[in-house]
């Protein structure tokens, strides 16, 4: 029967993440954006909440409690704290989840135990490409089979933490279909720009461009082996995570604007006493709630094992617009202060626009 209440475990998880987000992330996230760096102890503390090990099957060292809905709820709680921090804490997911969903038994045995340790493994994934006509289902990066190997060529963008990564999951176009390839960092033909990318938002997260120049890897490095991957499924899981992150950030922006409007006095009373402000806040609340329901529904479909491609596309269409709108209204509610970098609203607006581009930066 239809129900929209978190279960007991989800409540405990979101409380733990909420405390971390409130007491630690929100204390430093503004500085992290300015400095372009997330404190290492913060990332470690986020990792220790143990979201990923919980989901990995017991035979590979985890707790085997994989649920996309729970993942979405957790990501929302993280993103309430800060988006860049969430992406960094979740970067190991970019390899772990696709391996869980589509890896061969050998690949699972080789890689999944890495994600059950004390510290986050240094891995990342490369999906997005630096082109206006970016299409994840029709990538410009190519993978061509050749004598028991694959040869990859192309350029990737928005690759998080690539400079320190020891393993990269690279998505490429193999004969018209998107497939994924596990490539060790020091493979010949794989290079990573020395300089970080310069983006409008999520500035605390180091992202890089990655170049594949006749990069040759053994055929067994293809994720899913001979079967390869069902890329739509992976993309749907990614979109749930991004949708949940958008909802968490939008919730934060809404709450901040609401509280600000109640204490900011003009013309002798709080500005929230005016419908022009109060109605913006009401629309924000409705946007956030509706977006969250759409994310949950898509996650729920994935947990049931159904094809959620349509639901995920419809959800993403909605959520990407709503998060931008909510963040914009938060800036507007704060007026001049919304534009000042001492306040968080402008950061949320810069981040919000990115959801149309953040493909592949999170997955649950």
């Amino acid at each position, binding site marked *: 029967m*239809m129900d929209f*209440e978190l279960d007991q475990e989800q409540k405990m998880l979101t409380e733990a993440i909420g405390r971390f987000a409130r007491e630690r992330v929100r204390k430093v996230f503004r500085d992290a954006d300015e400095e372009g760096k997330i404190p290492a102890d913060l990332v470690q503390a986020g990792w220790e909440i143990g979201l990923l090990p919980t989901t990995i099957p017991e035979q590979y060292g985890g707790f085997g409690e994989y649920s996309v809905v729970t993942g979405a709820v957790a990501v929302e709680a993280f993103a309430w704290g800060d988006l860049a921090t969430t992406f960094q804490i979740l970067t190991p997911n970019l390899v772990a989840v696709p391996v869980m969903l589509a890896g061969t038994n050998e690949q699972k045995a080789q890689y999944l135990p890495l994600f059950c340790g004390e510290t986050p493994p240094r891995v990342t994934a490369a999906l997005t490409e630096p082109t206006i006509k970016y299409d994840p289902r029709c990538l410009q990066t190519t993978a061509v089979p050749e004598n028991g190997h694959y040869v990859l060529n192309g350029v990737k963008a928005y690759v998080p933490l690539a400079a320190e990564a020891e393993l990269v999951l690279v998505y490429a176009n193999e004969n018209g279909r998107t497939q994924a390839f596990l490539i060790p960092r020091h493979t010949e033909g794989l290079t990573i720009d020395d300089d970080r990318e310069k983006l409008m938002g999520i500035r605390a997260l180091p992202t890089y461009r990655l170049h594949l120049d006749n990069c040759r890897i053994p055929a067994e490095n293809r994720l899913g082996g001979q079967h390869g991957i069902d890329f739509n499924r992976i993309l749907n899981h990614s979109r749930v995570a991004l949708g949940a992150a958008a909802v968490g950030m939008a919730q934060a922006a809404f709450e901040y604007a609401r509280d600000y409007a109640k204490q900011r006095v003009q013309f002798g009373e709080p500005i929230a006493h005016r419908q022009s402000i109060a109605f913006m806040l009401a629309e924000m609340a409705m946007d956030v709630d509706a977006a969250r329901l759409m994310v949950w529904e898509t996650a729920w479909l994935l947990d049931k094992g159904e094809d959620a491609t349509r639901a995920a596309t419809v*959800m993403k269409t909605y959520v990407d617009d709503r998060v931008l709108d909510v963040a914009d209204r938060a800036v507007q509610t704060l007026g001049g202060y919304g534009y000042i970098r001492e306040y968080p609203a402008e950061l949320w607006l810069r981040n919000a626009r990115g959801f149309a581009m953040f493909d592949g930066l999170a997955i649950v």
Partner: protein
Amino acid sequence: MISFEIPEFITNELQMVKMVAEQVMRQYARYYDEHEHERPVEYIQIMWPVIREQYRQRFEKQKNGDRPKREGPDYRVLRLIMIIEMLSWGDAGLYLSTPDPALGGAAVEAVGTPEQKERFLRRFTEGEPKWGAMAMTEPGAGSDTSAIRTTAVLDPETNEWILNGEKIFCTNGSLALEESDGFVVVWATVDPSAGRAGMKPFVVEAGTPGVTIAKKEHKMGIRASDTAAIVFNNARIPYDNILGSPEVQQRDGSTKGFKGAMRTFDASRPAVAASAMGIARAALEFTRDKLAEEGIVVDYTKPKHALTAVERDLLEMEARHRAAWLLTLRAAAVMAYGRSNRLEASMCKARAGETVTWITQKAVELLGPLGYSREWLVEKWMRDAKINDIYEGTKQINTLIVARSILGYTRHELK
């Protein structure tokens, strides 16, 4: 535990409702749109025996007092929401003329005594089709329901209430009072100086002297539904026709009657939202089908930049429809679990009304000269849709309720 599962018995029942929607409602939708105020007999004949029987069973159960102790959620709330959506997908005007106790019956069920239930509700278990209705709005009291001026004065000699005033925009008012042996729950004040605290609901039955249908409105849409103006001219009703206590509580316990009226909105707003969503789905599906015939199909695997403007519009329509529908289902689910859904009810109503208005207007546009033509139902759906943005609290009133709720403000702090 988060779930979007619809119980199987509801999906099964919906298949039956869909047959009525497709084979009866869609067939007569245009006719009754163009013959306003004509009684939609075909639809009424189909619905009345079913409703009468369902109501009879429920009525007997309640009367025997064997109301089962409920474990878990009340599925009826969700069932009703889904049936309303499906009937409105068939035709919103016809759905509104369904012979049933409606809002008037809900008020009697909520606060009526066992004697009142017997007197007023038994009629829906037998005989010819009947309607219940609710009359709140007046020429000077729209969104501001506390401004009603219809009075109820007790005549101590005869122990009767004497009603005077005018009610407007009463859905099924004529069907309830003139065209069947039904009743209208009329909100009147027993003490105009007491403001909200003086507002009380009274049951006015068909055939009461001094009650006349002054007018049946001519409307933009939902023309199959009767919208009546009712005049009360020294209309006398028995003392026992008041619902709840006649006491005007002062400042301390204050506005119980008014709050009672407001509480009915917690159930009726999701119902209106569901009706809106039925129209929206009808327009969305029809538009999608017609565009597909022209080779225009949304490919859900294409990136946004590879979609045409029309395809993007369709995707946006689907997205906004889904968002508003999920808000509606949530309002129903929260209620089904016995929790307060005041905020959720207003959220879904505000969004559903706005969304169906936009979707149907967009549908007419996308289908071009044919969309605007009365040969198809799309233009009718656009006309039908708009009322959902207005009645049961305008979009603005519901937004105001949402705003007060999220800010923790009273009506004095946020006007």
